[in-house]
């Protein structure tokens, strides 16, 4: 009996989350294939590189999820990344402002850009596609202006840490060769395991209180074990190498905040309602215009955050920075289950989507696939992901 219940529960669980699970399974399969071809793929060094490469895309993806869920699109993401990176460089290197101040001002610049675009969409009723297409041109122009027609500005070592560096150790210096793990990362690992398990147990007991269906004890333990292994693997790999990169810490914080926004705030709920049924949202008293402005404002701030992390990673600001990045970001969100029709999508899914794209790029490079072939493969994966999405959606309805 117990066994039957578990089986049907698994079925329900899989059915309800099929999209995220398929992407997750796809991610794991891709990783297994790459490591089978070249074992170096799984080396802590490469995995760390993979995370660093994916970091800024993941940050931007969190923002675009809101935009796409609300039924809009943002084509200016890459241009905003380039421009804000250059602004940060100007402020710090040319004008000599302290780093913290430069970062704050850059984020404010992102906010202004977001409000500018959001105002056109929300109050000017210009489609987001057009506003951000225009934005792409405008911000690219401004980027050339700021960089004086293409000069490259190198960042300070201190700033580069944001995109390239790792959290400092607390007690013992870590050592990759002697397998001495990174203590700060280990502490984060243990802390997050404890927080996760407490959170799950609390949630389960609450659901029980309301007579909601919960997983059987066996399944519950299995689920916790699987997720714990996952967390341990990811953080453990980092601990065994140089520790957790700053940029990944930023991704985790932003993804956490955005998960909270989408799941637990009225704003998040409104975004889904607007994307799901604009007319019903309006007649339910939702201030669609202001919400739209907020969505683009958030995208602008994250664009600046992406610009900072990206600039720090490549070490300089240049006129070509960020070019075409919006396509990677949109693709990541959509691969991660964000519906192009609006109304559906999750932050977790989108981050997994970003990892899928990042893994493909990294793995294909590692096994020696040429640039041209990499582009073709990524394009086909996007196409396939959306096709699968439409198919599974149809069978649901």
């Amino acid at each position, binding site marked *: 009996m117990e066994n039957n219940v578990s089986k049907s529960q698994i079925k329900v669980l899989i059915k309800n989350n099929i999209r995220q699970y398929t992407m997750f399974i796809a991610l794991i399969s891709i990783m297994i294939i790459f490591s089978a071809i070249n074992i170096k793929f799984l080396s802590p060094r490469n995995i760390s590189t993979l995370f660093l490469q994916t970091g800024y895309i993941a940050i931007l993806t969190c923002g675009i999820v809101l935009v796409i869920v609300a039924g809009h699109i943002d084509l200016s993401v890459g241009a905003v990344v380039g421009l804000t990176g250059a602004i940060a460089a100007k402020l710090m290197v040319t004008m000599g402002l302290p780093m913290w101040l430069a970062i704050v001002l850059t984020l404010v610049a992102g906010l202004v850009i977001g409000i500018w675009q959001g105002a056109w969409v929300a109050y000017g009723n210009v489609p987001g596609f057009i506003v951000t297409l225009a934005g792409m041109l405008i911000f690219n122009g401004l980027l050339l202006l700021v960089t004086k027609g293409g000069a490259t500005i190198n960042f300070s070592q201190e700033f580069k840490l944001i995109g390239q560096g790792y959290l400092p150790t607390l007690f013992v210096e870590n050592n990759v060769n002697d397998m001495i793990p990174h203590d700060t990362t280990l502490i984060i690992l243990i802390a997050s395991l404890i927080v996760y398990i407490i959170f799950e147990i609390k949630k389960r007991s609450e659901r029980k209180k309301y007579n909601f269906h919960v997983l059987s004890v066996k399944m519950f333990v299995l689920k916790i074990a699987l997720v714990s292994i996952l967390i341990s693997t990811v953080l453990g790999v980092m601990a065994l190498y140089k520790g957790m990169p700053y940029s990944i810490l930023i991704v985790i914080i932003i993804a956490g905040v955005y998960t909270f926004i989408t799941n637990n705030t009225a704003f998040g709920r409104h975004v889904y309602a607007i994307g799901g049924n604009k007319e*019903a949202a*309006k007649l339910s008293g939702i201030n669609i215009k202001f919400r739209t402005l907020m969505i683009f404002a958030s995208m602008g701030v994250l664009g600046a955050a992406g610009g900072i992390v990206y600039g720090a990673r490549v070490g300089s600001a240049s006129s070509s920075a960020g070019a075409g990045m919006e396509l990677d970001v949109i693709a990541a969100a959509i691969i991660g289950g964000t519906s192009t029709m609006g109304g559906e999508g999750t932050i977790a899914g989108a981050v997994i989507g970003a990892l899928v794209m990042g893994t493909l790029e990294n793995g294909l490079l590692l096994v020696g696939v040429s640039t041209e072939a990499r582009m073709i493969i990524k394009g086909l994966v996007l196409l396939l992901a959306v096709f699968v999405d439409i198919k599974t959606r149809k069978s649901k309805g």
Partner: protein
Amino acid sequence: MNECILEMQNIVKEFSGIRALDDVTFKVKRGEIHALVGENGAGKSTLMKVLSGVYPHGDYSGKIIINDKEMTFNHIKDSEKAGVAIIYQELALVKQMNIAENIFLGNELRGKVGIDWNQAVSRTEKLLKDVGLEDNPLTKIYQLGIGKQQLIEIAKAIAKDVNLLILDEPTAALTETESDNLLTILRSLKEKGVTCIYISHKLNEVLEIADTITVLRDGKTICTLDNDEQVSEDTIITRMVGRELTNRFPRVEHKAGKVILEVENWTVPHPEIPGKNIISNVSFQARQGEILGIAGLMGAGRTELAMSLFGAYGESITGTLKLEGVEQRFTNPRQAIQAGFCYLTEDRKKSGLVLMMDIKKNITLSSLNSITRNMSINANEEIKVSNEYMSALKIKAASIEQTVDHLSGGNQQKVAIAKWLMAKPKVLILDEPTRGIDVGAKYEIYNLMNKLVEEGVCIIMISSELPEVLGMSDRVIVIKEGKITGDVNFEEADQKTIMYYATGGK
């Protein structure tokens, strides 16, 4: 040759067990104008959809005979080939295209290479003359008023060599002069041998133009009358509403309290036709603890009235709205909801619910503030509240986490109502609250309305079902073409009086 151009014999059409057409027989003589009348939902549109092939052969039972030949239409194209053309209330013209392009859309005149536009334009000129228009065939549709667009639809039908022209509420959106013009054109077409089926709620027009009148009621043919001196609006109305009232409505005596809503000289300009008002000079009051029914035919402006009061429709509105004695002008639904003025939309799927969201998210959508603490929605509170509404309204679903798209119509409607109950309304407008739901769920919704009224809520119910309006309301106001034409207490109201006011009788 038979004198009948069209005979529809014993037509039966069911929608999931409910008979929309029950053994309907309908005969149209060659060269006449034949009016088809009946209440909302009597089956007129369904019958015309059967005739035009929207419902394919086999989807209904019975025979369609045109010019002595039995027809089996599987598609609108088939009926067009047989010379049947139908012009719907919502015009099907492409606004960005010009007149000539629209008239020959899907029916393009082929030249040696591509389309022969010269021929199309010259033929369009001739067709326009037939319907009394002198516009340039290259004029874009959006530059023309609704009246002219209606005539272009007719020209388009004539271009396809139509024998039988069906007009569904052609004058609903027209001004009086435009309507007169249209009737003149129809008479001249009749002289040229075009037979016409004319569907209208406006009985004065029907009496003016029709040779024969067929009345439908509850999916049955009631009678076919020759339009002579003996026929009056009275005779038609009696036949339209002659239904027995059964006890389907739980009438409870309500104790009306003080006036909570006062509307004075409310006027809303028509969004597309300059100079025409969609609501003109409407004034009424509603009290706490009563149900005010708003009756009227489709297109009379009932929904527009409610939506404009709610802040969701219309521009440059004039007039005043007082809620609890305080003058208000809601410019968006949010303000209205905050003031305790809520509106249940007539189409729950299109504008009431977010179908892909679950029950609890739909219920709390308008009241998230009340369950939000420190920026965060209190998940436990949300579950608790939603469960309460789910059991109070007897919403049948696996759990409040089920998405609403697969719920039955009645349960969806209950979710939509629960959303407004949670917003704690003082005035609740229910627009077609029982449309498309089964009898059991209807009865539950009526009981719920009574309970709310007992708690002191003022309910305004817009309904196209006369028995419902009469069965539930304490007072009924009737709207015709954006104006209030009648205001009666339920004791004095019967279907005939209301139909009188709704169709413009005196």
